[in-house]
C-alpha cells in the first residue's frame, strides 16, 4: 500500500475549516494525488467545534471512516486547545499546526504531552495585513503544505494561482492579496 | 414490442403472462365494451316532441349517456345510463319521464 497521509482539521462552525480541507484536497488532486476531503457532519451550529479530514495518497483509499491516528492536525482556532483534545491519536512523527502568533514551545504545555513537532502560523495577522480581513484559510493551507511536504511547493503555488483566478474571477483585486498571504505563510510558519 | 391482448378479449381467464403490465389499457373508448346500463333499476324516457333542445340535460348526466350531434340531443345511450334521474329533474319541459325499469 502506498504511503497515505491523514490530516485532521479542528475549527469552529463558520470559520471555514471544512473549506480549507476541501481546498487542500483540490490542490493535492491537481498535483496528481488521490484525495479525500470530508467534514464530520452534525447539526450546523455557528461557533461549535467542528472537525474535517483529508486523506492524500498515490493510490485510491477505500477507507471511509473518520481519522483517529492522523499524521497532521491543523487547529484553525487556537481557543480550541482548551476545549478539544486536538492531539488525540496524533502520530509523534507527525506535527500539529496551530493558528497562533505565539512560539510553538509556548503552546506545547496545552497539548496533553504531545512530543512531536509543534508549528505555529499567525494566520490571522497575515490575513489581516494582506487581505484586510481575518480569513485564516489561505495562510493555514500554505502552512500545512510547508510543514507536511505533501505537495511540491512550486506546483502548489502555481495551482493556487490558478484556483484563485477561477474562484475570484469577479473580484480579481483580492487574488494578489491571497497569493501574498499564501507565500508569506509558507515562509513565516514556526517550528519547522 | 409487446403484443397487448385487445381489451375486448380480456376476461377472467387471462394469465399473468398475457395481462397488460401495471393494468395499463393501451387503447381508447374501452368503456364501450362494458354494459353498465344493466345496473339500472329506474329508467328515463325521452319524449322527443316535447323537447326544445335547450340542452340543460346533457351536461348534468354523470355517465355521458345523452349523445349530442350537431347541437341536438338524441335518445339515451341505455348501454351506459344508470338511471339516476338527474336529467329528469332538470328538464323544464317535461320531455323526460322517469319510471321503474321493466326488463
Amino acid at each position, binding site marked *: *500500500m502506498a504511503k497515505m497521509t491523514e490530516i485532521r482539521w479542528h475549527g469552529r462552525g463558520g470559520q471555514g475549516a471544512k473549506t480549507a480541507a*476541501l481546498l487542500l*484536497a*483540490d490542490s493535492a*488532486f491537481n498535483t496528481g494525488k*488521490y*484525495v*479525500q*476531503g*470530508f*467534514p464530520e*457532519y*452534525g*447539526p450546523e451550529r455557528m461557533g461549535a467545534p467542528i472537525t474535517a479530514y483529508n486523506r492524500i495518497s498515490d493510490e*485510491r*483509499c*477505500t*477507507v*471511509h*471512516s*473518520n481519522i*483517529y491516528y492522523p499524521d497532521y492536525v491543523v487547529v484553525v482556532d487556537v481557543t480550541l486547545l482548551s476545549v478539544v483534545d486536538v492531539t488525540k491519536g496524533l502520530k509523534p512523527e507527525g506535527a500539529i499546526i496551530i493558528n497562533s502568533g505565539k512560539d510553538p514551545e509556548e503552546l506545547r504545555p496545552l497539548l496533553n504531552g504531545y512530543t512531536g513537532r509543534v508549528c505555529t502560523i499567525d494566520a490571522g495577522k497575515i490575513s489581516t495585513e494582506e487581505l484586510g480581513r481575518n480569513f485564516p484559510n489561505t495562510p493555514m493551507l500554505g502552512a500545512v503544505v510547508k510543514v507536511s511536504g505533501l505537495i511540491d511547493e512550486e506546483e502548489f503555488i502555481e495551482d493556487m494561482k490558478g484556483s484563485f483566478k477561477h474562484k475570484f474571477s469577479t473580484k480579481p483585486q483580492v487574488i494578489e492579496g491571497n497569493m501574498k498571504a499564501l507565500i508569506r505563510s509558507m515562509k513565516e510558519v514556526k517550528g519547522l | *414490442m*409487446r403484443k397487448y391482448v385487445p381489451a375486448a378479449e380480456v376476461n*377472467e381467464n*387471462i*394469465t*399473468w*403472462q398475457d*395481462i397488460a*403490465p*401495471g*393494468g*395499463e*389499457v*393501451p*387503447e*381508447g373508448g*374501452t368503456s364501450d365494451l362494458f354494459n353498465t346500463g344493466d345496473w339500472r333499476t329506474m329508467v328515463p324516457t325521452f319524449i322527443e316532441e316535447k323537447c326544445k333542445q335547450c340542452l340543460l340535460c346533457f351536461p348534468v348526466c354523470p355517465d355521458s349517456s345523452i349523445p349530442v350531434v350537431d347541437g341536438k340531443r338524441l335518445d339515451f345511450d341505455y348501454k351506459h345510463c344508470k338511471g339516476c334521474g338527474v336529467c329528469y329533474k332538470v328538464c323544464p319541459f317535461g320531455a323526460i319521464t322517469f319510471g321503474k325499469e321493466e326488463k
Partner: protein
Amino acid sequence: MSIRERLSGNEAVAFAFKQINPDVMGAFPITPSTEIPQYFSQYVNNGEVDTEFVPVESEHSAMSCCIGAEAAGGRAVTATSSAGLALMYEVLYVAASARLPITLACVNRALTGPININNDHSDSMGARDSGWLQLYSENNQEAYDNMLMAMRIAEHPDVRLPIMICQDGFITSHAIENIELVEDELVKKFVGEYEPQEYLLKKENPLSVGPYDISPYYMEHRVSQAQAMKNAKQVILDVSAEFAKMTGRSYGLFEEFMMEDAERAIVIIGSSAGTAKEAVRQLRAKGEKVGLIKLRAFRPFPMEELGKALNGVKAVAVMDKSEGFSACGGPVFAETRSACYGLPEQPMMINYVYGLGGRDVRVESIQYVFERLSEIIENGTTGEVYRHLDVRGGEYSGL
C-alpha cells in the same frame, strides 16, 4: 479517454443527471440529498440541460410529479433521503406497480428517532418491498456509474421498474474524492433516449394508466411485476457488461473481494465495504483467509448467486446498517441466511447491526468482526446470532 475529476458523491450524481439530461426533475430538499437538486437546478438555470424542474411542496408530490411525467412518456428523476423517502412511501408503490421506470437518487440517512441526519440504511431498507430496483454504491464513482446505468436497467422492456441508486449520506455524498467521468457524448450514446412502447402523450394511441384492479386480475398483475424483478438480474448484468466495455469498470450483482479461499467472510453494503476491504487487506497480509462480499443489487436480491459464493465459507457475518426490529436480525441477514439454506456446505452465520445514525465504522470495527468469526469456527457454534457492533454496554471494538 475518461475525465479525471474530484467530486463529492452528490456532485457526481448531479453531474450524471446533467449528462443524462432527463425530461423532468420533481424534487423537494432534504439533508443530505439536498445538494443534488440544488446543483441540478443550476444546470437548469444555466441552460445546460432542458429538463423541466418542478420544485414541489413535499416528497409525496415529488414522486407523484415523477409518476405523471414518466407515464406521459418522459424520463423523470428525483433525489431524497430519510423522512423524504418515507413520505414518498405510498407513491413508491404506485410508481412500481404502474411499471414506470423512474430514477431516484437515494442518499441514505437514518430515520427518526431520535432525530438524526447521519447515515444508515433504514430509509431504503424500509422501501425494500415497494417493487423498486435498488443498487447500492460504495463511493462517489459507483454512485456516478450506477446512475449512468440506472435508466438502461429500469427502462428495459423486460423490467420496466423504477430504480433507486443509493449512496451513504455524508460519508460519500459530502466527501470529495477522485472520480473518472465519462465524456458527455459517450454518456448520451450509452443512456440513449427513453422510448416506451405506450405512453400518455402518444397521439396515435390513447393509454390509461393506474386503473382499479379487482381480485380476479390483481394477482396476475403482481406476478407479472414479480417476474420483472426476476428479469432485472440478467438486465443488470448485461447493462453492466456494456458499461464495462465503455469504461473498463466492471460491476455485477455483488462484488467478491479476496473470496477465493476465504474461510471467514462478511457480507456488507455501501461505503463501509470500502473500509472493510482495508481490514481484509491487512488481515490477508498476515496470512488470514478472509474475504468480503459487497452487495450492489439488493433488489433484485441475488439469492442463488450469493448462496453459491458463500458455499463452503466456514463462518459469515452479515452486516446490516439498519435495525429491522424483527427481534432476530436485519433484512440483509434474513435474506443472506435464506440464500444459504440448503447449501451443501452451509456456513455458520451471525448478524451484526452496525453504523446506525452515523456511528463511525472503522477498519478496527471490521477486524473485530473477523475475530469473532474466528472464535465461532474454533467453538464450532455461533453463540448469539443477532448482535450489535460498536455499542456501549454491548460489543465494542474499542479505540
